[in-house]
Structures are given as C-alpha cells and as structure tokens.
C-alpha cells in the first residue's frame, strides 16, 4: 500500500461502489437525509460522474418534524445541482397527527420514517437505494454489507447476508427485491469531518455552535424549533450555545454544548472529546439494548 492520504483510500472505495450501482441497476435513488453523512455521500456521487451530471434523483422522507434549516438546505441543493427531488411523507400518519411529543420516539419513527420509507420505495420501485450509514455508528451496523439485499418487504435478514469478497459486489436481485447500498461503510465520524474539511463541503448550519433557544427534554437539550413544541416546555426554554452532532427530527435530536463554530473547530473538539456520536440520538435506546437491530430488520436504514 502506498503512503497516499487515507481519505483518498476511503474516497476511492466509495466511488467504485457508486459506479457499480450505475452500471448494474435501472432505477437507483439517493436517499438523502440532509445530514453530514448524506452530504459527504452526495459529494462522492458527484465526483464519480463529474464532469457529467449525477444520473440519479434525490429522495427525502419528510417526517414533518425535521429542522426548518434542513428543509431549506435540501431544496437549495436540489435546485443548485438541477436534480429531481422526491419528497415523501406518510399521509396517513400526518392525518393522525403522529408526532414525537404525544406518541413518543418509537411510534413516531416507525410510522413517519420506517413506514414512510417503505411507501416511497414501493411507489417508485427503486431497485437500488443509496444510504449514508457507516459501520462505526452502531454495533449491528458493523456487520451490514455494502450491498445489502432486501426482500420484497424491504426486510433485512442478518443471518442470510451475501459474503462480500474484495471489491467485487454481487448486484443480482430478483425483480421484486432491492438493495441498500452504503458507500460510506468503512468511514468513521472523524473521517467524515476531515473529508468535509478537506473538500469544503457545505453543511446545514445546525452543525455549528450558535446561541439557540433550547429546552431540556428526555435527558437531552432540544431546540424549541416552532409552536408545536408543547407550551409547558417552551416556558422552560433558555438560550444556550449548542451544536448538533447528528440531524433528524428536532424533538428527538439532542444538542451538545459547544463553542465549535466551523469544521476545524469541530474536529479539534472531537479529538479532545471522549463520547461516540449516536449518544445524542434518542431512538437507539428504544426497546431493549437492541433498538437499531430491530428497526433495521423492519426496514429502517
């Protein structure tokens, strides 16, 4: 192995995965979550095809509870890159007004995210779905394949995965099946940040520390983003300098106190810090200690 910069080694593997999808699938889609990992994945997809345009559409599952800044960022990106943007919301869930405050994180995530995603995939019959998940995020992810075949119900069977040898990927599926593709599988959170720094990748400003109106909720500090935050909570809100290590539904996304206002400062902070990233995410704690594995079997990313 040469002494090339390791970020380049990671980038190379990812781009090869992206080419493989282009070559072997008819109807791929980029499942775009607007977060930093999605932003890196998007950047890599752009590189894979440059100077030509990205040949895939973007899709976003809108739970209706995302941060406003995320939605703005998403729409700007699709416009700037001149890409088709598919936004999907579970309308039945919307009708029932499913929300994290009244129904709790587990139910909200299941109906507005997992079910909504399945609806989206069924509607457009995508055969390959890019996701920005990384193996270092969580234990069950560590065993996920790069090309992960799903049955007609989008379910993952961890005991029946295809072995992946070298950089040769089996892309064969039946007509009613699909694959989830994870080009960032071998990246860590730190790699993501260093790459964002190196490549100057744009991010939602919520990643950077600023004085924000927040409140304590379920052992986390959440943003009092809008009027839907219950009054009782809003009354207790206060101003704090925080940033978010991950982005999702705002009532389920805890901020961390921080002074890191740019990528370099975040990297410096992470190098000092001693906590892993999903700590701020409330959904991994659902159910027993195996929250994520159960969700994934059901079809969550």
């Amino acid at each position, binding site marked *: 192995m040469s002494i090339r910069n390791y970020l380049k080694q990671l980038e190379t593997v990812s*781009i090869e995965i992206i080419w493989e999808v282009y070559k072997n699938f008819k109807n791929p889609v980029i499942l775009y979550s607007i977060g930093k990992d999605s932003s890196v994945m998007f950047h890599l997809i752009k590189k894979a095809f440059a100077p030509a*345009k990205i040949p895939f559409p973007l899709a976003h599952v809108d739970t209706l509870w995302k941060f406003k800044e995320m939605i703005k960022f998403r729409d700007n990106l699709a416009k700037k890159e001149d890409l088709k943007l598919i936004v999907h919301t579970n309308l039945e869930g919307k009708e029932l007004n499913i929300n994290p405050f009244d129904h709790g994180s587990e139910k909200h995530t299941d109906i507005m995210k997992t079910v909504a995603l399945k609806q989206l995939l069924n509607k457009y019959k995508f055969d390959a779905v890019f996701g920005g998940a990384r193996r270092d995020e969580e234990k069950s992810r560590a065993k996920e394949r790069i090309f992960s075949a799903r049955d007609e119900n989008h379910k993952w069977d961890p005991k029946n995965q295809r072995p*992946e040898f070298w950089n040769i990927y089996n892309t064969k599926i039946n007509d009613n099946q699909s694959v989830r593709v994870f080009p960032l599988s071998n990246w860590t959170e*730190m790699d993501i940040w260093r790459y964002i720094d190196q490549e100057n990748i744009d991010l939602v400003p919520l990643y950077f520390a600023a004085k924000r109106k927040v409140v304590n909720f379920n052992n986390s500090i959440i943003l009092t983003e809008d009027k839907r935050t219950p009054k009782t909570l809003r009354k207790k809100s206060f101003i704090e300098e925080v940033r978010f290590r991950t982005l999702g539904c705002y009532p389920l996304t805890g901020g961390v106190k921080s002074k890191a206002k740019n990528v370099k400062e975040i990297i410096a902070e992470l190098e000092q810090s001693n906590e*892993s990233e999903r700590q701020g995410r409330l959904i991994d704690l659902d159910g027993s200690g195996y929250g994520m594995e159960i969700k994934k079997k059901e079809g969550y990313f």
Partner: protein
Amino acid sequence: MSKKKQNKDILKFITCGSVDDGKSTLVGRMLYDADLLTKDQLETLVQVSKNSASINNPEKLDFSLLTDGLQAEHEQGITIDVSYRFFETLKRKFIIADCPGHIQYTRNMATAASNTEVAIILINAKNGLIAQTKRHFFINYLFGIKDFIVVINKMDLVDFDEKKFIRIQNDFLEFSKKKIKDKKLNFYFIPISAIKGNNIVNKSDKAPYYKGKALLNILEDMKIKSDKMEQSFAIGIKYVARPNSNFRGFKGKISSGKVEVNQKIRIFGKRTSSEIKEIFIDDKKVKSASSGDIVCLTLKDEVDISSGDFLTSFLSNLSNSNKFNADLIWLDHDELKKNKDYLVKFYNNEVSTTKIDPKFIYNINNLSKEKFNNFKLNTIGNFDIEINNKIPITNYDKNKELGSFILIDKISNFTVAAGMVKYSNLSTDSLPVSKNISYSNIDVTNFDRAKIKKQKPCCIWLTGLSGSGKSTIANMLDKALYQLGKHSFILDGDNVRHGINSDLGFSREDRHENIRRIGYTCKLMTDAGLIVISAFISPDREIRDFIKNKIFKNKNFVEVYLNTDIETCKKRDPKNLYKKALAGKIKNFTGIDAPYDSPENPEIILDTEKYSAKECVEKILDVVLKNDK
C-alpha cells in the same frame, strides 16, 4: 490526543482464533490500553460486565461485548459473521475484520481475509498449536495474505515460560515452511497476555526474552508491500462521462502501473489503440497518474470504448483469456454442479462459465491435495474454468484486483464461490485452418505470409555495448509481442554461436562473418513473416550498414541503438566480462581494447540510463507497430 498526521494510511487486519483463545479480549484490551475507547463505550462495558468491573479495572471488563453485535450471536455467545471495527492512532488508521473461530465458518474467515492485508493468529499458550490454527493460517495464505502476526496468548497461565513460547514458535514455523515455500511470507511472534495487557500496547517485563515490539507498535510500523506500481499500466473503464458533445472522458481507477499524457495505449483485447490526450484527477489536469488513482482520461482519437473495457500500455501483464485455472472457495449450501453455468464477476467484467473442470480439493488441515468428489460449503478446491468470452485477467498473486472473481448462481442470485486466478491463460489458440485449400497451385508471397500472421514482419536490430541492456530488452520485447499476438523470434549469442556459427572464433574476420550470417538469417526469417529481434553488440558500422542497405534494401529493418555510457556498462557488468577484459583475460573486448562504432542514422536511439527497460520496449513497439493497427 492529536491524530493529525496527514499522510496516514489504512491498515486492514483480520483476527483469527478459536472460541476461547481470547480474541475479543485482545482487541478490547488494545483499545483500552491505547486509550481509544470512548467514555460511553466504557460505561456500557462496566454496566454489562459482571462482578467487580470498573473503568479502572480492565481485567474484569467483558470486552467481547464490544465486538459481538447481533442478538442471535449474543444468545449463542459466539461471533458468527464478519464484523468491522475502526480505530486510529497517531501513525495509522486501522480496520479490524473480526471473524469467527468456529469450524463451519471458513466462509466468513475467507471473506474477511480477502479484504485485509495482515492476519493476527491467536494461539492459546496452554494448548499450543491446534488443528484450527493451521486451518486459519492456510485460509489466510490462500487468500493472499503474506504478513502474519502470531499472538501466543494467555502466557500468564504458563508463567510466561520462555521454553513454551519458543516451542510454539518453532512448531508454527516448522509446519508452515514444510507446507508452503513462499519467500514473501513474513512472521512475527509475540508472547502476550490479553487479559493482563502484556505486550499489547506496552512492552512487558514478564517476558524479557522477547526482544520485539508490542503488538500495536508492530501494527503501526509494518510495511505492506505492493508491486502494483512496477506493473504495466491497466485501467478498467467504469463510466464514460459525456457532459457535452465535445467531451468524452473515460473514468476508472488505475489498477496497476502509471500513465502519462501522450502515452500510447491500446484498448485491451481489441485491435485499436490511441494516445492519452488529457488526464484529470478530480477537476485538475495532471501530467501523469498511477496505480490507485481515480482518473478521467481523454484520448487523441475517437475510439469506441465503453464501461467494461480496459485501457493498457502496449506491454501489458494482462492475458486476454477465456480459460484459466483458479482456486475456489464454495460458499453456498447447495453443492457445485459441474454442468451448470454460473455468472462470473471480475472487477470490471461479467461473463458466464461454460465449463468447470475440477482438479483437486485442498485438505485445509494440512494443505495437501485430495481427489475431487464433491464441492460443498466451506471447501476450497482447484479448477480449470472456461468462460463464454475472452476477458483481461491476471494471476491473483500478481494483482489481487484483476485476478479475483466471484461466482453467482443465476437462479438464487447468491454468491456461491469466490475465486483466485492461479494461471490466467490456459487457452491453446491455433490458427484456423480451412479445409478447402489445395496446396499445389498457390504462389505464396511474403505478403500472404505476413497477412495470416496479422503482422508487419521486420527485423529489430539491437546494437550497443556489452551491458547496455540488449538481452533484457530483447526478451521483454519478445514477450510483449507475444502478448499482442505477434509472432517474433530472438537471435542471440546463445542460439547462433552454438549452431550455425559454431565454426567461427573471435578474430576480426570471424566476427565479421558471424554478423554477416546473422544478417542473412534475419532476412530469411523476416521473409517468412516473423518479427526478428537480433541482440548482438555488432560494433562494426560497415557490416551493419551492409545488412541494412544491401540485405534488407532499407526495408523492414529497424536499427535500435542502445546508447549507454561505457562506465555504466562496466558497473552493470552482468556477466563479469568487463572485469575479465580489464584483467586481460579476454582479448579484443569491445569498449576495452576493441572499438565500437556508434550508428550514424539509427531508427531509434534509447538512453538506457534515462529510461527503464519497460519504457524502452514501449518506444520500440511504438515504431514497430505504427502501421500495424
């Protein structure tokens, strides 16, 4: 802790051991001692570990919880799949493929081995070498791993006994050397107690006889050799970018060698060639790029190239093959069916098998070859495989990327086997012979002879001092031409002096006669349709010009002058001839006590001090094949 070193690379390693060798403890303890576990990881560990565990008491922490993830595995208490862990130190980033020690999971170990560069093999000091240790070693070896770190663990249970350590080390070396003769194999042996943290991150004084480094330091410092740079240029085209009608860029990752602007390339397996116009890395134009780079190439000619094609230098290490020999590991519950066609997927090509001919099965306990009867899950065997199309491949031990493949069942879509090419080309192509030719009334011209060879015959006359590189270049050129499907032949001292010219000595007259006869022989061979390479010092300008002007009449004759300084030749002195000549043991030696007339008008002059032999060969090919597309 600062982890800022920018040109860090990634080292991928696999850990293998049987269930109670202490694999998870080893990895866990390494992360713990190197201060690489996060606070919440540590807290979770304390919570789930039993008894008196605490953050400051690592011996009680149950590190297996760090690496075992899936629910079913927890219930069984063993790791049943490959799982990937990441960590980073000041010097390197690491990816650990954690794979099972359980007997029926050869498949997972092979998967992990295919994606790593180094194997850590754990041995329980109490048990010594067991059947599984050998099995793990063989699987990793078959998948191309050359660097092994043998961790002799649980040394605390045998009081760090030096004799025990040495015995296990010797046992291991003895059986591995008996079974495998491979000079590239590299072993480290370390006495370790994973649970107590001896020799993992910190060197321990418990084993003063051990002079090597602690495990983490070995991992940080070891160099992984790659010979991809020395190989010839090859890139598999993955995507053709056409942002507008004026631009056609061929994108891919360079699998071996390097490429430069203006370099002549060919579209492998097709009879077309072109030259590199531009090379882009990201959106920057560069002059050259090498193995591992993702590039976008534009060419000077409009050539039909699509994804799946390979661009290569003229002199290529690849074979264009539809029959090869390979080792396979079977991964499916259904056995191999010999008369069934499987999909074969290489790095940049997908074809179908037409015939799978089993040769033998490896006994994975001792690597002996056994008679083939059936091929089932977790067996490794050797096969001749025929495929329905010629594709560019090479041997796995030369280039993993272009010598590896998977087999896919066309019905179930499952990956049923992974394969490594041992011999890339077994096909015995012969010229098609038409049954209707009557031999009596045909005047076969030189032109006709050349036509069936699909080549332009000529004589490549290499001239230069002893040590200027004639033999090396002649041999390489011969190989390159062969790979291009051209029929060539070398004339050199070995095949001329012992036969047709065995009556000649080394006087000036005899040397003259020697070259004159060679000249005529070259002409006869050229008339026969061959590309003849002559590799003689041929110091006399007069006789060279005679051959060129009179025998060849200035046609189909390429004089190549290897211009190398006499001092360089003396230094190279491959046959110790200069030494002997200077000592007066050889008389009339060109460059010492006999003159060399350099050519006045050679077709090609090559500075062999500036260019590598490979580059020289490419320059010659450029000229020789110019009108031969």
